[in-house]
């Protein structure tokens, strides 16, 4: 903690471009990774299976949306629709007998194709107009799903996902499914970390910040926006498929409806545009907070002997949770990731903070 930047020197460009330059960060990541790997032995299955696992999957989804919205700066309100494409293609592929490895790939690729197709039309407009166009794409997908029994399996439909398997090994245990989610989330995270040090990431930031300046540097903004949509859609597709395969166990249209798109976008915004750690935090806050606030609140009400009707008991935590989001955004409009970065930066140079100012 005492001047953690001291003694950090690089003797090659390779070491200068390491993922985590500060030893303290590196150690923290290693410890977190170890906790992640040991989680099935540390955490009761209830929390592993119904909190941590979905949190990891949604984090992967948030990272994917953050790629297109945070990095490349393109507002996207149809993300759940893209996830749906991946989920349904993968489940259909798996039901057809294709091994899950390939089914996931098929899911990702078909999302990528559909996502870029939509982007092709959407990218002719910018900003709010783009947001509306992507929203329209979400509605189109909602309509297609509710009106095509062959895709969704009929009205009030749900399409069962075959048991998940990798390398011919069926994975059904809580721990096994957890590792699948963890593995995917780590892969996406690594990709995003790599973005911070490659030309692709730089090109996206350039397109986001000043597209005329990007153009003068030879960055074709239309092409890179399209690539951003394709890459983000690929992540969305695989994530949607994994969500169905390891958490919902079946695919239903409501799982990918417009409210889900809004929710993922909320996770991105609360977490912070372009922030990786923020994506983890945003997903946790939006996904898990309602339940936690609810429990803490009912425990608290029980503690002070408050007699409330079940309805009030259900509504008050919602209000508290909404207030929490407002407070967070008031304290740091750039999101939880920025809040974390502020604290980290402060500790990084403490006690020499006055030097920085």
């Amino acid at each position, binding site marked *: 903690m005492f001047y953690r930047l001291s003694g950090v020197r690089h003797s090659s460009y390779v070491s200068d471009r390491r993922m985590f330059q500060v030893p303290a960060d590196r150690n923290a990541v290693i410890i977190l990774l170890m906790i992640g790997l040991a989680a099935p032995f540390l955490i*009761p299955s*209830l929390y592993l*299976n*119904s*909190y941590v696992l*979905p949190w990891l999957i949604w984090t992967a989804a948030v990272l994917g949306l953050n790629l297109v919205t945070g990095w490349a700066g393109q507002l996207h309100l149809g993300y759940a629709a893209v996830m749906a494409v991946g989920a349904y293609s993968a489940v259909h592929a798996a*039901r057809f007998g294709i091994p899950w490895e390939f089914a996931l790939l098929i899911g990702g690729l078909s999302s990528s194709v559909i996502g870029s197709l939509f982007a092709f039309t959407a990218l002719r407009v910018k900003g709010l107009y783009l947001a509306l166009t992507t929203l329209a794409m979400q509605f189109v997908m909602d309509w297609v799903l*509710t*009106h095509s029994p062959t895709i969704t*399996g*009929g*009205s*009030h*439909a*749900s399409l*069962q*996902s*075959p048991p998940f398997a990798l390398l011919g090994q069926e994975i059904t245990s809580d721990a096994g499914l957890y590792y699948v989610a963890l593995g995917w989330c780590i892969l996406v995270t690594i990709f995003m970390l790599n973005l911070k040090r490659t030309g692709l990431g730089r090109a996206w930031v350039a397109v986001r910040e000043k597209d005329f300046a990007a153009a003068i540097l030879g960055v074709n903004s239309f092409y890179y926006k399209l690539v951003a949509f394709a890459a983000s859609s690929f992540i969305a597709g695989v994530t949607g498929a994994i969500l169905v395969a390891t*958490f*919902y*166990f*079946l695919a*239903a*249209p*409501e*799982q990918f409806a417009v409210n889900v798109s809004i929710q993922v976008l909320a996770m991105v915004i609360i977490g912070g545009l372009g922030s990786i750690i923020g994506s983890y935090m945003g997903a946790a806050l939006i*996904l898990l907070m*309602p*339940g936690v606030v*609810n*429990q*803490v609140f*009912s*425990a*608290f009400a*029980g*503690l002070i002997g408050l007699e409330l*009707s*079940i*309805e009030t*008991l*259900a*509504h008050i*935590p*919602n209000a508290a949770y909404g207030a929490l989001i407002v407070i967070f955004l008031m304290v740091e409009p750039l999101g939880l990731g920025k809040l974390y970065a502020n604290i980290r930066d402060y500790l990084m140079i403490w006690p020499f903070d006055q030097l920085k100012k």
Partner: protein
Amino acid sequence: MKLTTYSRNLAAAAVVGITSLTPAFAAEGTIKFGLCYDLSKAYTFITPQVAQAAQDLATLVNSKGGIGGHDIEVIVRDHGNEPQRGIECYEQLKREGVVVFDMLSTPVSIAVLPRVMKDKNILIQSLVGRGDAVDGSVFTQIFPVGPTYLGQAANDIAYIKEQFGGDMAGKKIGFAYLDYAFGQEPIHLLETLAEKEGFELALYPVPLPGSDQASVWTKIRRDKPDYVMAWLLAGGHVVAAKEMKRNGFPIDKYLSVNWLNEVDIANIGAEAAIGIKRGTNVAGGQDLPIIQKIIAEVYGNGKGAGPEEKIYDVYYNTGVGIYSAAFEAARLAVEQSGYPVTPESMKAGYESISGFDANGLFAPLTVTAADHGGGGKTRVEMWDGKTWVPQQEWTAAYSDLIWELVRESSSKFATE
């Protein structure tokens, strides 16, 4: 010091918060029902009444010694209609020893269905979720006791046929429906029936959320159907009533799905609504032995689970209906296999319910291993300005056709 007291209280709250997260020891001797309901989002028009009914009915049963000497414990939680929280709720209550669950939400019921099937627990799924879940041979753990929407639609047609003296040839039936899964479900059945009975079917999709029906009713005025069946929800009927008045469509030719209650009638206007019809699986009103008992013995002793005015609502009766069947199943389970109630004994209990009608609250119910719906009987009732008047006996029409459709759909779920 003020600060220390405050932090001590906070610490105490935190400890309670944490302990409440860990699975509590099953209180000795109770039979638990887990109600993970949407008490804050989309289903709030019905969940408070049903939850209150379940709790009141449990209080009534417990006051008479419970089931085989064991108290019924009704656990109510909110899931906000979010699959994620519904699964959380299911996984948590499962670990607290609950084996019978009720989600009362289509998305959440669908989300927990694979888990319930895998864990071999019991899911009460009345009025929501997949319609084909009545097929007990496929959905072994799911009990959608009561009619399916398919059954209800078929019974509506049977009622209309009765009004035409048994001949529907050349008649025109309108079907106004919310354009998503719930509303679309009966279309295929209605098309089949139209062919079979020789009537003409006119479809009127209403865009979500159902508040804009102007163009639909203009079309209806032009088409002049003999009856309009309406698969709309709550406020949708109020909008429809206004449009009927404007377009001169007689309200007594309007036949609603069961989602039309006293609140909606009040919004339409008790006078204006005279003649409106609805299909239902439970008798409305309070003139029923079981409701009278609850009023006298539960509310009379100040033990009601909520405000008494909630009782005067058909959804309360619906809740009492769902849970009298559930408690009956539990009673049979204890009778047959003793305490504790396991998923197997509860399933067996449900499947041995025979001719049970909760003293006239609903049509006699017979659940079998193949038919988890219990017969699917409904009847049409009419609002007379004060109360609901039955227009026919409990019926279950076109059963063979419905089962054909159900099996066709459920077989798709089974093929894996």
